[in-house]
């Protein structure tokens, strides 16, 4: 055996050992991943393919699906006024509720950040609406509270303002749901608080010594350092807001009314699929939602290069 043959053999031995170690746990991994794999195939990937197929058909569950090509998609964008309405409602809801909620969460987090006694109690209190917010009970409460003779109007009446029935008025109904969403700023606030806690106080002190006022310090120090957290909160809130359902359903009693002013995208999709049994159309709507959320998330990710600052220059 020449030296090169020896080294060749050694290399082979080492690589097989490496490969073996690399895949050392194939059997065990299969065991541990089995439930997830079954779920992935039968409840996620499989259904995704089926959903894509159904979206090109007319399907009522009772009869076999019949192929209609792009009909569902073209109907959506050309002749379905309710679809356009549901898009409008959802965009308005997202565009108003997400920024207002995040700004409010940030302001409260800033208030709580420094030298407050009883932080734990305040944090708990501010989180309670978020904790309960997704429930039917709270949506119901909201509907009653903002109704014509509800709590809000009784309070307004005490100071002599005669207010409309907020929930039944198409001009305001959606904003009553926005208010409900903003009221639940708790989890964003907790994430902001955690982010604020990680800013070294020396930064603030140094710039204060240099003569920067509180506003300047906020915009030039706190905000840039906090930008990754803002980014994270923004993405999370965007994704969940696009999918809101329960609140609009309960407040409008399942109708999306008054005059479709609260017909959120998910609500309309539900009505199409499970009230009218137009499963093909509903599936097409689901794919449009995926694309919408995808595009928005991508835009936020792209824009993040301009406003999100990472301490290490964004390498990690």
């Amino acid at each position: 055996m020449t030296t090169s043959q020896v080294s060749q053999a050694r290399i082979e031995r080492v690589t097989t050992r490496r490969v073996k170690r690399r895949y050392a746990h194939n059997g065990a991994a299969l065991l541990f991943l089995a439930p997830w794999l079954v779920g992935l195939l039968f409840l996620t990937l499989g259904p995704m393919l089926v959903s894509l197929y159904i979206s090109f058909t007319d399907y009522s569950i009772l009869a076999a699906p019949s192929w209609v090509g792009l009909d569902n998609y073209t109907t959506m964008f050309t002749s379905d006024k309710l679809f356009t309405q549901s898009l409008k409602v959802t965009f308005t809801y997202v565009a108003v509720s997400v920024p207002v909620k995040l700004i409010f969460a940030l302001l409260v987090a800033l208030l709580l950040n420094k030298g407050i006694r009883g932080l734990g109690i305040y944090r708990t209190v501010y989180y309670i609406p978020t904790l309960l917010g997704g429930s039917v009970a709270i949506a119901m409460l909201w509907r009653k509270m903002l109704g014509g003779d509800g709590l809000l109007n009784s309070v307004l009446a005490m100071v002599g303002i005669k207010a409309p029935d907020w929930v039944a008025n198409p001009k305001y109904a959606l904003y009553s749901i926005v208010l409900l969403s903003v009221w639940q700023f708790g989890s964003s606030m907790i994430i902001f608080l955690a982010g604020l806690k990680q800013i070294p106080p020396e930064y603030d002190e140094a710039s204060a010594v240099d003569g920067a006022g509180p506003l300047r310090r906020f915009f030039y120090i706190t905000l840039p350092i906090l930008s990754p957290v803002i980014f994270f909160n923004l993405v999370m809130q965007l994704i969940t807001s696009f999918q809101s359902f329960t609140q609009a359903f309960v407040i409008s009693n399942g109708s999306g009314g008054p005059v479709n002013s609260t017909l959120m995208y998910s609500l309309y999709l539900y009505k199409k699929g499970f009230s009218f049994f137009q499963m093909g159309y509903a599936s097409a709507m689901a794919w449009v939602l995926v694309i919408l959320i995808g595009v928005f998330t991508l835009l936020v990710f792209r824009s993040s290069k301009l406003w999100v600052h990472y301490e290490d220059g964004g390498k990690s």
Partner: protein
Amino acid sequence: MIGQRNSTAWVVSKHVLISGIAFVMLYPILWMLGSSFKPGHMIFTETWFWPQEWNWQNYMNGWSGIQGNPFSRFLTNSVVLSLGAVLGNVISCSMAAYAFARLNFRFKAICFGLMLMTIMLPHHVTLIPQYILFNHLEWVNTYLPLVVPKWLATDAFFIFLMVQFFRGLPKELDEAATIDGCGPVKIYTQIIIPLAFPALVTTMIFTFLWTWDDFFSQLIYLSDVSKYTVPLGLRLFLDSSSQSDWGPTFAMSVLSLVPCFIVFIVCQKYFVEGIATSGLKG
């Protein structure tokens, strides 16, 4: 902080502001709580939450239920459903997370990528085919469509959360155990699971809350009133309530929130940590 911002006036006004906001935020809930003890005709005439006299009649009326189904049935159904979901999620997600965090296997990168993708996917896409599938299996109007997916780790978010946590545990533990002759199953049950308590509790808390409040799936899959859960039962109250009948509805709403409160108070420490570190939406 520097200079005059530490003055007593600043501290006091800050506290006043913070507790003021807190009071306004909590007021709707206090009002609901108070209203649940008020006679029906007082609910919409009184703005102050404190009832002038306490009566339990609303609770008795609400508890006796609706359409021949006592409220206790809705509660029991919700408890059974939530426990099934919590167990399923903790077991199946921790298993998958263990494989991703600690084992070496073929196609790991692809699998991990797929798992991350499913986190971002809106559930609407799989909703209708899943419904069709469960309909074929004749599982509609049972709890199976609501529980089985949790046993198959479909809430991938929790897998991701646990992967992050498991990766933080020292690798030497696994190595030492392997030398002692432990296989992956033993390492998972004897080492990882006991050490991962905080991550498991976070998963349990949020699975419980989300299942308890998950109106959408329950609305789609359950149709017999006797199988209704708390959210569906409440909606039944809402539909049948006449103007004077709001007391029992509010009373049962309050009851429906009690389990969430208990979980919150018992697990408060994990709760805040869980949200702050993982970004879980509450």
